């Protein structure tokens, strides 16, 4: 039974963690695409920016969380979300809106966002340095060891406090986003603008407001994803940047411009990664005695080595683009 626990730890928990992070990043990418029709490359660095703000606030008030019993970083997260959202709106006003006003092709804005990404990376390194820093300053990371109720399982399923918080926040974000898009006037106007921007304008919808709301949601969720990722690992200025391409893969796999698709795509990519690097011989080992003698069980039966994990999202991405270019949910073809 320890093999099953190993599977739970390495595939189910890890996949759900990666999937939640990808999903929250991909929601932002897909919303920005559906409203402004460009691929926002600076999204990962908005995640890092959110985490950096949390790091700064936690350093300033290291004991703020003790009273509530939550990690200080989580207490600071709402503040960081607000600042990141404002920064996202500000970046749009300063860099992307002038480009849109010139009616440039989307690719020009994409290149602009690459510029923003490099600028943000520089600024983040300027303030945070290049080394890894823990977001736990006055506390220690709580780790839950869940003993399995089986006789044969001697090892626990291990899940950390930030992972639990990540799952809760992802659920809240998904439900909240669904209610916002399907019930609220602003959310419906957002879908309307994604469908037909000219008609949205002809209905009296202020498209500038919708653009700002899009950045607020994208920036807020980026701050959550970046912070929870840094809590799970540690704060590094390039940590989120390395997730940019899997996040884009998740958005495209789910169907670009489709928020529910982004969530589904995030978890597909997350679980695909952990399943691909999982060593399947661990699960087969208990059955070794029943194998014929000529069949030797290799020590490592992973589909790809951990160091090649990044291959997996792109393999899925290419497969989806070849066989179902609109993604799982029918998104807009790029």
């Amino acid at each position, binding site marked *: 039974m320890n093999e099953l626990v190993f599977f739970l730890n390495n595939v189910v928990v890890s996949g759900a963690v990666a999937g939640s992070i990808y999903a929250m990043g991909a929601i932002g990418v897909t919303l920005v695409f559906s409203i402004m029709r460009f691929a926002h490359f600076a999204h990962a660095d908005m995640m890092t920016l959110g985490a950096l703000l949390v790091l700064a606030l936690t350093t300033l008030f290291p004991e703020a969380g003790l009273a509530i019993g939550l990690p200080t970083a989580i207490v600071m997260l709402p503040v960081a979300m607000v600042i990141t959202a404002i920064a996202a709106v500000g970046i749009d006003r300063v860099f992307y809106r002038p480009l849109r006003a010139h009616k440039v092709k989307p690719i020009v804005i994409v290149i602009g966002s690459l510029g923003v990404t490099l600028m943000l990376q520089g600024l983040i390194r300027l303030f945070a340095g290049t080394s890894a820093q823990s977001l736990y300053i006055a506390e220690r990371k709580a780790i839950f060891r869940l003993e399995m109720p089986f006789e044969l399982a001697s090892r626990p399923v291990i899940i950390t406090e930030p992972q639990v918080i990540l799952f809760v926040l992802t659920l809240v974000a998904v439900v909240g986003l669904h209610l916002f898009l399907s019930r609220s006037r602003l959310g419906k106007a957002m879908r309307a603008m994604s469908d037909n921007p000219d*008609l949205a304008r002809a209905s009296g*919808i202020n498209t500038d407001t919708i653009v700002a709301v899009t950045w607020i949601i994208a920036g807020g969720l980026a701050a959550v994803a970046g912070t929870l990722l840094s809590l799970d690992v540690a704060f590094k200025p390039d940590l989120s940047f390395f997730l940019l391409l899997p996040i884009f893969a998740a958005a495209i796999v789910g169907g670009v411009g489709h928020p529910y698709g982004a969530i589904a795509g995030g978890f597909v990519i997350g679980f695909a990664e952990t399943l691909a690097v999982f060593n399947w011989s661990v699960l087969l080992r208990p059955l070794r005695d029943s194998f014929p003698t000529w069949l030797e069980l290799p020590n490592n039966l992973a589909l790809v080595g951990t160091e090649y994990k990044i291959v997996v999202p792109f393999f899925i991405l290419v497969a989806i683009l070849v066989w179902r270019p609109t993604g799982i949910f029918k998104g807009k073809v790029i």
Partner: protein
Amino acid sequence: MALLEASDVHGGYGGMNILNGVNIAIEADQIGVIVGPNGAGKSTMLKAIFGLLEVNQGEIRLRGEPITNLAPNKLVHKGMGFVPQEKNIFPSLSLQENLEMGTYIRPNNFRRMLEQIYDFFPPLVEKRHQPAGELSGGQRQMVAMGRALMAEPSVLLLDEPTAGLSPMYMNEIFERVKTINAAGVGILMVEQHAKQALAIAHKGFVLAAGQNRFTDTGEALLNDPDVAKSFLGG
């Protein structure tokens, strides 16, 4: 004072003028119809009024107030509604959500107007939760007009509302236009079906090459042998 008045309007896309001095005027209780051959600038004129392309000479007034080159969302607040010829619905939104977008600027009117629109277009009621993109052409046109009417406009611009519809739906749409007008909404409509449209028009504007060729009451234009010979197919 005219409800909507456009005098000597010049304009077009990116430097090339399509409109070379168009004059339009309708009163509050009137249906105005713009007809003319392809490329005459009929739809362009409607878009110019609704601020979708730049007017570089001339003036447009709504109840005497200059509205030349005002942005579409501002015009909606001033009581102007516009139904484009194509892409006139939100395909992934449900029928009812499409109508709701019509009252985006006055959300408190939603329930009251929704009832009116469903009374007005009864076939829409049972499809109200369907994505609008799955509706038939005639139903889409009703949704498109319904969305514009939800904002309670004082003047409604319709760009070829019967394009691509069967004769049965065409007559139904013309009947609806008359009823909307009878309820006190001024209508300015571009139409390919010139004869049928002029038959319900108080005023008709025959455009050619971006200028007024004939301007008169709908009836007078229908009976004018010159108009009939050149523009109504004899």
